[in-house]
């Protein structure tokens, strides 16, 4: 018995040591690989440049699947090294807030403007040069110059094709409080893009109208879902009839589940608050050690090849370089999120969070 144990203790120690050694070995030889993935190679227009001994550190709330090819292409075309911390926009913003001026981030990419507003209120954002700012229309960037939009997602209504007929489709989000939609609509009420959308809703129609709309939705038995994806998936299965989401999850779900996914996007009428364009934002931190490299990255995100990639590969709306949206996307209307002055909203997000929580949608 004891002999077995003696040797097994030794074996455990040996295993741990071996693992630690193997680990340090793999990390030591995994650096310095400059092979481009297929998707990245398709973005690169010129040749790869030699490394310049410059590094940009990105905290990215946009996921690897959609952004990595552009970052690889950027590293190749500029010779600038890129380090990325991938995560959730909100948590990354909180992390930068915690790190403060000691943050390693040079650039923060956010899925929606809310987390950017948080960093701005903490005074952690730098100002983007006019040269880069002028790459997008004024309504798609901060008037203070602290952030710039680089792609857009449109708010739409996703609906199950078997449960919702064409004639039943609403023209406006305001219709959804009617009795015929009772218990049939899903809301991603704690999702960042929904919160941003609701903030703009309040700004456009006033607090009273927006709050009343949400209360009416709750009274009409709207169903809470944790995020856009869950609603699109549930609509595809027929668990829920329809829901308010960002347009582009539908394409991924349909591509992944094929015909089994019985859902489709419906675009609200022009100028309806329900078809707002939510933009993804790029910022440069005030403490960046290499403003030049950070600006090059932002400019690259808005270059024709990157904007083409966004609309053709990730089905988003391009915001720069005169690129027209992919024809499968619903047409853009005049209402874009940047047309609302986020800077003037002040404690807008805090108030939005409070109104949503007090509406009772979370406990429904």
């Amino acid at each position, binding site marked *: 018995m004891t002999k077995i144990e003696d040797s097994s203790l030794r074996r455990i120690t040996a295993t741990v040591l071996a693992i630690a050694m193997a680990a340090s070995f793999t990390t030591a030889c995994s650096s310095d690989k400059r092979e481009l993935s297929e998707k990245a190679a398709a973005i690169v227009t010129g040749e790869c440049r030699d490394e310049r001994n410059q590094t940009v550190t990105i905290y990215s709330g946009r996921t690897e699947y959609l952004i990595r090819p552009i970052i690889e292409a950027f590293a190749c075309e500029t010779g600038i090294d890129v380090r990325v911390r991938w995560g959730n926009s909100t948590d990354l913003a909180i992390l930068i807030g915690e790190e403060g001026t000691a943050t390693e981030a040079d650039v923060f990419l956010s899925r929606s403007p809310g987390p950017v507003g948080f960093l701005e209120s903490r005074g952690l954002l730098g100002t983007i040069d006019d040269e880069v700012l002028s790459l997008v229309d004024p309504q798609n960037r901060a008037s203070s110059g602290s952030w710039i939009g680089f792609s857009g997602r449109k708010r739409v209504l996703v609906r199950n094709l078997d449960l919702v007929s064409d004639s039943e489709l609403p023209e406006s989000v305001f219709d959804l409080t009617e009795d015929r939609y009772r218990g049939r609509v899903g809301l991603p009420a704690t999702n960042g893009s929904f919160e941003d959308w609701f903030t703009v809703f309040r700004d456009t129609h006033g607090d009273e109208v927006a709050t009343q709309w949400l209360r009416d939705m709750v009274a009409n038995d709207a169903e809470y879902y944790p995020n856009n994806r869950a609603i699109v998936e549930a609509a595809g299965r027929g668990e829920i009839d329809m829901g308010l989401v960002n347009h582009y999850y539908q394409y991924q779900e349909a591509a992944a589940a094929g015909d089994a996914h019985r859902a489709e996007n419906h675009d609200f009428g022009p100028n309806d608050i329900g078809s707002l364009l939510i933009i993804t934002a790029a910022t440069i931190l005030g403490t960046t050690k290499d403003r030049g490299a950070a600006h090059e990255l932002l400019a690259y995100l808005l270059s024709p090849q990157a904007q083409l990639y966004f609309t053709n590969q990730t089905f988003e709306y391009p915001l720069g370089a005169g690129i027209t949206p992919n024809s499968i996307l619903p047409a853009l209307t005049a209402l874009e999120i940047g047309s609302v002055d986020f800077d003037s909203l002040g404690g807008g997000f805090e108030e939005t969070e409070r109104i949503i929580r007090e509406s009772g949608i*979370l406990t429904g």
Partner: protein
Amino acid sequence: MESSPANPARGTAAAGPPDRRVEGRKQAPLPLTAAAFIVGVLFAFPALYLTWRNVTSDSDPLGLLTSSRTLEPLRRSVVLAVLVSASTAVLGTALAWLTARTDLPGRRIWRVLLPLPLAYPTFVGAAAFIRTLNPGGLANDLLQVVGIDHTFELRGLFGAWLVLTLFTYPYVYLPVAARLRSLPGSLEESARLLGDSGFSTFRRIVLPQTASAITSGALLVCLYTISDFGAVQLMRYDTLTRAIWTTRLADQPTSFALSAILLVLAVVVVAGERIGSRRLGERRPARTNPSRSFTTPLNRWRLPGLALVGGTIGLALVAPAAALADWGISGLIRNATGGRSLAINASDVVGPAWNTVWVSVVAACVAVVAVLPTAMLLARYRSRVGPITGNVIISTFAMPGLIVALAMFFWTLRNNWAAEHLRGTLFVLVFAYVVRFGAQALGAAQIAVAAVPDRLHDSARVLGAGSFRRLATVDAPLVTPGLLAGGGLVLLSTMKELPITLLVAPFDFPTLTTKIFQSFEDAFVAEAGLLAMVLVVLSGALTWLLVVRRADHLD
């Protein structure tokens, strides 16, 4: 946590007066106390950070505590925690007894499979569960084939209770099974010979001897439940963690204050369990001789026993796996038949899988070593430091991962040297994992250490064995199954950890869970399904290799 199945132990005549046990203990040696104290301070980092944030921001935990917007979610958290703790205590104990002490067919396979539901990250597991069981899901399709139209929908309290019970019962199952394996079968044998029925043997002999394993497991479940966010979010049940989560950006002071309330709740629960289990006055086994265990023949209870084990595996392991397989395999088929190509290739799986495995094994080993001094103090010596450190270690388990991650940054940035040399290193990542999950190793370690009879130690000393030799020849063989079970829990939890890994891991250190998270974020469900299957299979392989096989070996 005075869960019902532990109560019968109170009445047993065999339980000695608890005071005598403590009085008879020796004063703790200074090095052991010092080690436990240092570990306790390190584990307190997140709590100290949270306190600091509450003191320096204009948050108002006391004011919040009296407002209805806090009290309602708090009440829901408590209700859910009580229900889940009770159900896992019953289920985990029953499963452990069935697979460790009876002639249930297929025990070896069950032992590998039963801990596995712990491998699902809740955000994946709950989503997969919904995909399988909710309207329009896989079970629905299956039932429609046989003509049943099923419209059952998982949500709210019931949904959260069911999902959490199925995903957390291993916290009870693993330590109880380990405990049962190290118990002598002689008492059960005698009881049966004297005419006790199988059930009455279970109640009078097995329950009292496993009570501390059950309550320590149920305590972990309770703390896990009050800190869980993934399941309650997907099941749309509005608890305290959801309030913490929804306010974390828009209203940070409130979020920190609510986290502080959560921590206080955890401390109260842990202290309550300690007082409760002291009153239980568990009897230690008279003699530990794992080589002779006792097998209860199930006879006509065979089928119900199999149904319970099989049903649990079916719901907790197979149902979510079916959704993952459905996502993953249809993605593979589409990829092969020229449809949408997969967004990941082999190297996207192998690298993260390797990172996941080795960092989790290291964290599990470090966690066991870190909690051992405290476990020894608690189990063997009279000490003030032991209970305090123990409470710190266990309460920290209820901390939201985000707070633990932020605390890591807060403390490393306090000091120039640490900021330069420690931030963004694997050292901090492993440290964060250990702090977050050390509680899982402590309960098991404490029970394991307590099971070593003092007399054995005394005899060894009289025979001239030095302290290290005693450790290797007396303690190691007896405590190993318990330590492995505790380390196994940490291992499985670390493999699926998300919030800490996302924020604290070095750049370019992807793990399977961070990859799965990203896949889900943008609805790449085929990729998420494949990666999650790899995670579950790897967890199963490691559990078998490091925990089950070794524990069997010691039988």
